């Protein structure tokens, strides 16, 4: 079982025992991805948010039927796609012929579609955020920059980064956290 699947499995088990906070955390974990997915089907920002919300509610109601054979995210992904398609049908619009594969979806460049849900104000904020993030990464001390770059750009695990950087996993974890802290402070500074 992957680390992701294991964490999600624990959270799902908690929800099944009545802990709604665990579902809240699952929402926080995946709402970015689900928004990205839904926005490939819908262009209007309000619709994207409505359908994303609906998908999470449907998943919550359907949790008793989730057996854990697949990863929670894969299951949620399917629900979100069906919800988006049903929404299009209900609005008498034609859903796309083919689905986006869940694995492909992870790496799919959704820039083109997401641009459609941006208004000029959002676009400005996004551009500004992008500039601040890249500047903040550039300004990081070398060891923090290396750790966060290997994680975010290369997608390496902590263990792999520890091997590359020849340091303990705990140090990698701490460096990545400190890097994120520094970036967050720069973002807060722009409001």
């Amino acid at each position, binding site marked *: 079982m992957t680390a992701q699947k294991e964490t999600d499995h624990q959270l799902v088990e908690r929800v099944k025992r009545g*802990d709604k906070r665990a579902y809240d955390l699952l929402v926080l974990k995946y709402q970015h991805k689900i928004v990205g997915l839904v926005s490939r089907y819908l262009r209007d*920002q309000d619709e994207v948010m409505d359908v994303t919300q609906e998908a999470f509610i449907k998943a919550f109601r359907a949790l008793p039927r989730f057996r854990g054979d697949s990863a929670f995210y894969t299951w949620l992904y399917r629900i979100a796609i069906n919800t988006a398609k049903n929404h299009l049908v209900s609005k008498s619009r034609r859903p796309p012929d083919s689905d986006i594969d869940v694995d492909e979806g992870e790496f799919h460049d959704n820039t083109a579609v997401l641009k459609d849900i941006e208004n000029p104000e959002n676009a400005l904020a996004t551009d500004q955020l992008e500039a601040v993030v890249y500047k903040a990464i550039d300004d990081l001390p070398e060891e923090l920059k290396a750790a966060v770059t290997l994680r975010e750009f290369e997608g390496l695990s902590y263990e792999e980064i520890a091997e590359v950087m020849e340091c303990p996993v705990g140090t990698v974890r701490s460096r990545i956290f400190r890097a994120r802290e520094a970036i967050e402070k720069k973002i807060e500074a722009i409001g």
Partner: protein
Amino acid sequence: MTDKSKESLSALLDEEASEFEVHQLLRGFNSDESLKGSWLTYQQVRAVVRGEKSLTSDQHRHLHTRISQAVAAEGLPEFGSQYGPLKGRSFVKPAAGIAVAASLVLASFFVLQTAESPEPTRGMVDSERRAPTQAIPAQTVSNQMKSGSDNWATRYTGEDVELTELDDEKQRRLREYLNQHDRMVRMNPNARMVMFENSASE
């Protein structure tokens, strides 16, 4: 919000947080709004560096609030008897108490019998088999345990035992055992033990 919880948050984003940290974060999210804010910022940064354009942090926060409120308004889904509340089972607690007490009495009886038994027990070494067999008073056993003269005794007194964190595999097996136990108890409240399959490696 402490640096420790934020470090756990950062590890969670990378799927590197331990189960204990996830548990702490669950409590943290409930009481500390800034933790949620940091989480959304971390995700926003990730989206930027990976070239994914997304909603703004405020929009995500707003969306999350909407979903949370909608989920809060929902009743808990029906998870069947396995997870359902134990209705009309007021005898469960007393029965559980009796079962635990009975297990303790049985365990104590077994320990005393083993100590006093004139017959060699399975697994004894030859030298122990050749030793004169006589009843050993419980007090003597206790003294032996304290003095650490027997290996098994030392092992169970807790002295000289170093506590170490369980490795991932053991944590997984413990969790699996606890989940299985929990399910069994819910199905049959009188059952208090489940068999855990030993792996060949143990």
